[in-house]
Structures are given as structure tokens and as C-alpha cells.
């Protein structure tokens, strides 16, 4: 199973581009599952479910959603394996500019939109800085010049990333993205012992204290667990 972690500021177009991208996977008979991580509320699971794919959601409540993500990702991977999906995608609301859900050697995608302002790329920190692929959305409603300037700003914060322009409404670029984010040679069986790309600050749980290894053995303190029973989703 290939694992892809997607993050990005609220309403940047994560779900829209994922829906268009997953449609392309479905056409190629690739089985996809999605888990949405958010803070207080999300309806994204309903949108994904409409594609007829397995989906779960987890709400972090008072915790930073990325802390919640890393406390649960190992179990989420087990769920994906149980569902026998070829690709497991996580969508995280990038609500915390200090954290990112990216794991070393796991494909990391950041979605950011052209409307968010030219200072956003430097404000959102690790979520953008350490992504492998940056998807820029909403290019259909701003000028060519603004797209070019915004792209430069993104590039100056993360020069290593592949930057792609995808239209979340009509799906232009989604086919190309689908060929990029998935690698059928990647087989994730467990995340036990893997590390985060970026340490998460501010103390709440073991990860707040600088832990980067994944798995129950390394967790202590205020760890909330996601509900992966069949009742959810």
C-alpha cells in the first residue's frame, strides 16, 4: 500500500483536487482509501464517500490536528491495510502553522491557493517547507502575473518541491498530479519507528516533547485515539 499525506491551509482546495485525482485512480482500477483529519468539524468524508471509496474521519478537538495525526497514523495505516487499498491518502487541515503531518520517506503534498496572498507561503512554515509536491489551486480566477509571482514565492520557500497547478473545479492538472503522487513501488506495511520530517513544538503529548518515532511504544501523556470502528465513516 502506498501512503500519501496531504496538508494545506483551510479551504485551499485539498478535497477538491483529491476528488479529481482519485477519479483518475478509479479509472485505472487503483483502489484508494481516504482519512480526513480535522479539528472541530468536517463534511469531507461525505464527499469522498460519494466516490464509493472507504473513508474515515478523525476530529482532534482541543489538540493540534497534526499532533492528533501523528498519535493515530499507525492505526490508520493498519486500517488501510485491512481495507486492502492500493493507496491510502490522508487529508489534514493545516490549522497549525508550526506543525506538519509529514513523515520521512512518505510522499508529502501541500495544497495552497493563489488567493491566500503572497505572504502566506512564508507564514505557513513546515507544512510548505518540507513538502515533496506543492499543488497550487484557484489559478482559474487570478491573473497570469499573480500566478507567476505566487509560484516564485512558493519556490523561494521550498525550492526542492515539484510545483503543480491544479484546478480543483474542473480538474485540469489532476490527471498529471495522479501520475506524480503515486508510486506503485512503495509498500508501506507499518510506520513503527519512522520519524516525522519536522519536530512538533509545544508540550501536550510525547510528540510535543520532541518524540519523532511513530507507534504506541513511543507515546505517552495526552494521546487521543481515532475511532476506526465500522460505526465511523
Amino acid at each position, binding site marked *: 500500500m502506498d501512503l500519501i499525506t496531504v496538508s494545506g491551509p483551510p479551504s485551499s482546495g485539498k478535497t477538491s483536487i483529491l476528488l479529481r485525482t482519485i477519479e483518475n485512480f478509479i*479509472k485505472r482500477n487503483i483502489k484508494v482509501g481516504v482519512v480526513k483529519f480535522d479539528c472541530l468539524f468536517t463534511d469531507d468524508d461525505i464527499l469522498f464517500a460519494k466516490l464509493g471509496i472507504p473513508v474515515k474521519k478523525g476530529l482532534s478537538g482541543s489538540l493540534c490536528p497534526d499532533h492528533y495525526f501523528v498519535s493515530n497514523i499507525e492505526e490508520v495505516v493498519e486500517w488501510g491495510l485491512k481495507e486492502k487499498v492500493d493507496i491510502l491518502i490522508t487529508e489534514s487541515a493545516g490549522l497549525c502553522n*508550526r506543525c506538519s503531518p509529514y513523515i520521512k520517506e512518505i510522499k508529502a503534498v501541500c495544497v495552497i491557493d*493563489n*488567493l491566500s496572498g*503572497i505572504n502566506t*507561503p*512564508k507564514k505557513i*512554515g*513546515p507544512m510548505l*517547507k*518540507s513538502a515533496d509536491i506543492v499543488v497550487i489551486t484557484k*489559478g*482559474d*480566477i*487570478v*491573473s*497570469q*502575473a*499573480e500566478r*507567476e*509571482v505566487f*509560484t*516564485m*514565492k*512558493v*519556490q*523561494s*520557500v*521550498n*525550492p*526542492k518541491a*515539484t*510545483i*503543480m*497547478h491544479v484546478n480543483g473545479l*474542473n480538474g*485540469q*492538472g489532476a*490527471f*498529471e498530479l495522479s*501520475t*506524480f503522487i503515486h508510486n506503485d513501488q512503495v509498500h508501506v506495511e507499518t510506520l513503527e519507528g519512522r520519524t516525522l520530517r*519536522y519536530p512538533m*513544538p509545544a508540550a501536550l503529548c510525547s510528540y510535543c516533547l520532541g518524540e519523532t518515532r511513530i507507534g504506541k511504544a513511543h507515546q505517552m501523556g495526552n494521546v487521543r485515539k481515532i475511532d476506526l470502528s465500522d460505526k465511523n465513516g
Partner: protein
Amino acid sequence: MDKNILLQTKIGDLFVTHPYTKDFFTDHLIPYIGKENKTIEDFFKYLDLEIIEDKAINIELFINSLVEYIELMSTYFVSEKETKNTVTIYPGLHKNGTPENFDFIEITKGEIISIVGPTGSGKSRLLADIEWAANGDTPTKRKILINGRTLEPHERFSASNKLVAQLSQNMNFVMDLSVYDFLDLHASSRMVEDKEDMIKKIFDKANHLAGEQFSKDTPITELSGGQSRALMIADTAILSKSPIILIDEIENAGIDRKKALELLVSEDKIVLMSTHDPILALMGDKRIVIKNGGIDKIIITTKEERNILGKLEELDKTMMSMRNKLRHGEKIIFEEEL
């Protein structure tokens, strides 16, 4: 630049040899001010842990990114190794899997091609094939060659050397800037040398295209529809690096569409436009007709069609003048107008 050499370089010296790196330090919230005489290695060695935590600095990632950034920017300065002169489309498949029926279509610099076809027929897919220089790996299985060759993956997906610039009537300016500051920002990001000349040229051309004049101090978000479109077209023609312009309709108000296309062509762009408007479609040298996902026909605009275009333009003028009369509260007398 080699990483070890970079680490031994003084921050201030780096800013002199590679001026754009200063913004890079600023954008990454690196507190270099007052430390310009330190080497990069020493600067980070003695950087306060609290600051590192507070600014979310990842030193290793920063330094690797800096090396990449310098490499990336140097590709901007080697001025275009190769100018893009032709786009060649090799046939693929219709939606039902039957092959497209043509040998190849070659489009050259300065040509205007219209793309027509019913909703859902595959116009956008063709434009996307061109945008990403498809290599038999899209749903249509078409191949797109640039200057007679397939592009390498890094060329196809390079964000700084995008093949295609796009204009559509849904696009608006969103930045909170005056016309001058906006052009200045775009020119700076492109790192052109003769910035002031460029800005003046774009400003003049945009006013030449726009029905109503605007000043350099106007906030771009306050421009009328026609003025915005005029500025976008002039800016794209002159300042955008992309050799191909994809146009998705240009509305017929407040802008001289013929002059707009002439400007794009005079700047050596390849122009492709998807449109349902006969005036715009006939302004093309050729039009590609799409049906069931495939290219069905390629029609060269005939002399007769050009004549019809002249008549359509006259009709269009009549419509415009009637619109203006209505606007100014006058009565319209039909026979007299026609």
C-alpha cells in the same frame, strides 16, 4: 554552488554575489541582521536554540534548500537556452478508442489557432495535453513535441519554465496594489534588467487595448473588466516567459480583441484559443474541431470566411453602438441602424 563552499561563505558576501538570497533568508525567518560578517556555518552554530524553536528553523533543511535555490535561480539567468518555435501534435485516440485521423499538426510562433467543439468534447483536455507536453501518457494518448522533440520530465513539470500562460474571462486581479506596483512586482520576480522600460511598455500597450484609459496609480482591483483584461494581456504578452498562450474566451467589452491578438503575435507567442464566439474563432489562422475527445478536422480560415469576419465585425459595432445608446437613455430606431 557546492554545499561546503556555501557553508564557508560569509552571509554578507553571499548577498553580494547572489542578491536574491537575501529574500530567501528573510522568507525563512532567519535572523541574519547584524550577523552578515559571519560564515553560514558559524552563524547557525551559534544561533540561539530558543530562536530556532521560535522561528521553526530546520537548519539542515534550510541549507539544503538554499543550495537548491541558488541552483534554481541560476537557471533563470542563463537566458533561454532554446526558444520555443513549434508545437507539434501527434494523433491519439478519441474517447471511444478509435485513432485520430491526421498525420500531425504543427503550430508555429506567431500563429493563432482556434479550438471549437461542443461542451464535454475534449477542448480542455487538448489544451492540457499541450500544457504538460503529453507523451502518450494522458487519457488521449497524444504526443506533443516542442521544437520537434519530446520534453524531459523535469522540463514538463518545471514551475519556473512553464510552457503555457493562461488567460480567461473568469480571471480577476486579487492583489492589493496599484498598476505600477503590480507591474514592478511582476518584473522584479522575473528579474528582468530593463525593468522601468518593461513597465512603461506594458502600461502603454494595455492602455492602447483598453476602451477607457487608466492611470498607473489605479489599484488593479478597481480596473473595469475591459481594463483588467487589457492589462492582463499586455503583461502576459510582454513579461510572461511562457511561449504559448491559452485563451479561454475574451469577452467582447471594453477591449479591442483584434489588437490584443496582434500584440500577442507580435511578441512571438503561439496563441491557442477555445471559443464559441464566431468573431474570435475566425480571427484564428486555423481552427481545430474537436469531437468525441478527438481532433476531427483542421480548417484553415478561408478568404471568404475572412470577408464574413469583416461583416460580423460591422454587426458587432452596430450592437455596441446600440448598447451605448441604451446606456445613455436614447431611443433606438432599428431601420436607421441597419
